[in-house]
């Protein structure tokens, strides 16, 4: 079956670094969420090493976030009538035979997720630094307390969002995962899921 390129190697690399750093951050950080999770810190050689990894992978997470932001912000900035309609019908995910309006390189849901990831990541970084070196920043105690709350709120929101994101990219939409693995997708997949983008690519000529 004929395929077309959906993501370049660079695009996939940035996404992979961001995704893997998220998973590492989750595993090194979740040990402090509750006493019953503390054992997870052993996975990375104890709590001291976990913390060290968490801090510096956090930096990688933020850098890759910005790289991802700059590589996709063009496509994510577009928001037209079809996107509005897409959101209204929830991308056709709420029924078996609901037709979703044609999407560009990204559909409206992906664009919203992209923006959510970006702002959540920035807040993750800011609250993270406050918790990392509170004694150096010497901020009022309430700021540190609010950082704990915000960091956890973002965590909960992102874990929920990422679970949905992973589901939609794998089980819910067969044929999607190859866009991350090889960068190539089936033409018919592209026509079905991202019709406007597909037409653009065809027009430009392969």
């Amino acid at each position: 079956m004929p395929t077309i390129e959906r993501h370049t190697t660079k695009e996939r690399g940035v996404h992979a670094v961001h995704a893997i750093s998220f998973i590492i951050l989750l595993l090194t950080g979740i040990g402090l969420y509750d006493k019953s999770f503390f054992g997870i810190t052993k996975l990375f050689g104890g709590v001291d090493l976990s913390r060290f990894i968490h801090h510096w992978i956090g930096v990688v997470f933020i850098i890759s976030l910005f790289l991802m932001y700059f590589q996709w912000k063009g496509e994510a900035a577009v928001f037209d009538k079809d996107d509005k309609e897409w959101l209204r019908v929830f991308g056709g995910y709420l029924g078996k035979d609901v037709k979703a309006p044609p999407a560009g390189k990204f559909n409206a849901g992906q664009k919203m997720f992209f923006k959510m990831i970006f702002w959540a990541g920035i807040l993750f970084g800011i609250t993270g630094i406050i918790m990392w070196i509170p004694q150096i920043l010497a901020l009022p105690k309430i700021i540190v307390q609010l950082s704990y709350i915000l960091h956890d709120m973002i965590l909960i929101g992102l874990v929920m969002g990422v679970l949905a994101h992973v589901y939609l990219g794998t089980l819910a939409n067969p044929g999607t995962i190859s866009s991350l693995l090889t960068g190539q997708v089936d033409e018919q997949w592209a026509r079905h899921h991202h019709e406007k983008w597909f037409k653009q690519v065809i027009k430009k000529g392969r």
Partner: protein
Amino acid sequence: MPKNAMLIDVSRCIACRACQVSCKQWNRLPAVKSSFAGSYENPSGLSSATWRHVRFRETVEKGEVKWRFLSFGCMHCKDASCVFVCPVPGALTRRDDGTVYLDEQKCTGCKYCISACPFGVPHYDDAKGKVYKCNLCADRTANGLQTACAKTCPSEAIRFGDRDSLIKDAKAGGKKIYGENELGGLSVMYVLQESPSFYGLPDKPAMPVTTAFWKKVLKPLGYIGVSATVAAIILHYIAIGPKRYKGGE
């Protein structure tokens, strides 16, 4: 089990700071370099190397100087916020004898307790990467000795003993006790001359709202939110199923 406690009658305090010194000596805490800040108070407050500290409060009222002292350290709350937020099993525990014990070996230096303590007691040591505070001389009391500060106090302002009898004694003397019922009952109690806030103590100590929201509301909400997402995904896969496209497998 009888509860260890200290009752500090501030009207008996002569601000000699022997409690400060004996605490440092017993716990082998180094002296901290300080600078003059217009008061005999020295150093300026608790730190990771100062677990007991005499606060000086100097005011002028109706032309008369009022000089008040408060020997201050960990209050050893029954419902201790620090124990509640500590994520490390066994690092901060409330013992049966009334001690809130911080195990240096287990502390990871996450500093959650610092943000949670309503009294501002725990302090972080940058060099060691751990938090420190008074352990009510657990190594002494376990061997039948009283705390170093109580032992050394020359004016008997700090008294160590069984909590119930300390309270009974103070009440027999007609004294009002700070800490008898606060936060479930503190193991370090005061008989004060002024209002608690005069000494920089909270009038009604409580777990900070932010801490309570964080761990009592948000944490369970996190479990609910993530479980609901997983449930929704499974439900979606069963009820609606994947989006297949023409020509695809």
